């Protein structure tokens, strides 16, 4: 009796294992249109509506189980997203810095091309410090005499004239900005060629004055102001002609009866300079004739 039971049990086991292996072999041996595949397709068409109905009916159950799992998973997911967010923020910051630097360098290149300043051997320098005052009258750059920088050389950047070199060391230099009260440069309007002198408006950072403009001069709001270059052989200018300085903001009557006071907004943003170009081979001779604008 016992032997019969054992034999039956073993026979059932071996039979089922063998049947499974036969099914497996047959499944892989037949083509996609074979019998077992057809059975699967038939079962799919029969079971699909049942499973769909069960799927909808059991959604609350699934949601209940899912809620517990999701709560645990959400914490890990949140931590991962926080890390990812930090990495992306760092990347965005880095790219914004690079974009800002690119913009500044592009403005320098554009001004150099526009005013034909490449012939003055511009040396691009990074601004390493800025006077922390309201007027931002001086900046320090990372290029000095070893790069050809010398006293008095004009400095451009940010889309226009920035200032001039006022002190030089071996590998650094200081630049006095055009907003400094001691700064002045011969200038003219670009279109009507009205001459004058650019000086800063004391107490009004970001505002320049085109001085010594006669009442009869034709100066309109929005007109561009550029450096005039050398206007008299006796007093040669260090600044080549045609460097953009700014745009006319408004025109007022001057201190004298015959003068007008032209307020100019600087083309360069003095508070946000990262790169500037020092024109290291300026000539003070007959540059007026070479004015390009």
């Amino acid at each position, binding site marked *: 009796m016992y032997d019969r039971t054992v034999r039956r049990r073993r026979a*059932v*086991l071996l039979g089922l*294992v063998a049947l499974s292996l036969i099914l*497996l072999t047959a499944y892989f041996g037949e083509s996609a249109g074979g019998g077992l595949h057809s059975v699967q397709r038939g079962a*799919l068409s029969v079971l699909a509506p049942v*499973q769909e109905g069960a799927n909808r009916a059991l959604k609350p159950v699934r949601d209940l189980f899912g809620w517990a*799992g999701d709560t645990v998973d959400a914490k890990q997911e949140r931590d991962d997203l926080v890390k990812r967010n930090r990495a992306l923020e760092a990347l965005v910051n880095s790219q914004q810095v690079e974009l800002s630097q690119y913009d500044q360098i592009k403005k320098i290149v554009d001004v150099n091309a526009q005013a034909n300043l490449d012939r003055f051997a511009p040396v691009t320098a990074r601004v390493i410090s800025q006077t922390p005052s309201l007027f931002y009258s001086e900046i320090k750059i990372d290029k000095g005499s070893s790069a050809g920088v010398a006293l008095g050389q004009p400095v451009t950047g940010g889309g226009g004239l920035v200032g001039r070199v006022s002190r030089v060391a071996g590998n650094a230099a200081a630049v006095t900005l055009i907003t400094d009260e001691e700064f002045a440069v011969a200038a003219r309007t670009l279109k009507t060629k009205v001459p004058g002198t650019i000086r800063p408006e004391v107490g009004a950072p970001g505002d320049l004055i085109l001085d010594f403009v006669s009442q009869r001069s034709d100066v309109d709001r929005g007109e561009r102001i550029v450096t005039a270059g050398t206007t008299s052989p006796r007093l040669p200018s260090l600044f080549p002609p045609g460097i953009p300085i700014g745009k006319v903001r408004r025109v007022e009557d001057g201190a004298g009866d015959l003068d007008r006071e032209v307020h100019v907004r600087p083309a360069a943003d003095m508070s946000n300079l990262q790169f500037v170009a020092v024109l290291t081979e300026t000539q003070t001779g007959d540059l007026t004739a070479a004015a390009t604008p």
Partner: protein
Amino acid sequence: MTITPALIGRLVALGAIGVIFQTAAISQVTIFGAPVDLFPLVVGAVGLLSGSIIGACFGFGAGLFVDVAMLQAVGVTSLIYVLVGYGAGRLRELRDPAHGLTPMAVGAVATLVATAGFAILTFMIGVDAPVSLLLVRQILVTVVVNTLLAVPVYAAVRRILSPFLPDDPRRRRRRAYTTGGLSPLSRS
């Protein structure tokens, strides 16, 4: 244990409903990244309650149904579940375990055999998938989750099959203790 048409009907219903429930609802629940698979627990519980022959037959039928319904290679799951059901049934026949945590141990082993066996057979039949730590982690998570779920699943299966089962081992042990001893095989 007598195999009756009513028992077969209940087992077929248990298998069919279980597969639909598993595929429609349970398999879409993930815990720690691993989908929940209760069917090894059901097969193990049937084997533990009904013996090796019924366990193996139920495992074969349920595995075949899973393979057909899930469009998997026919024969893989049935082969694994045959072994799971047979093993659980043999444990009952040889040891007649009465401890309350036996379903947990059976559930853990059944899940381990099912998941690891399925992975091994899948690799053997040529499914090109990398063996990674992720797979090991998923198997371990499934084993842990199923171990925790084994007792309620066992209780549900026992409730479904209870009219056709011999006495529960624990109840039989209690009665043997109070009556001075009855053979565990006296009713089977």
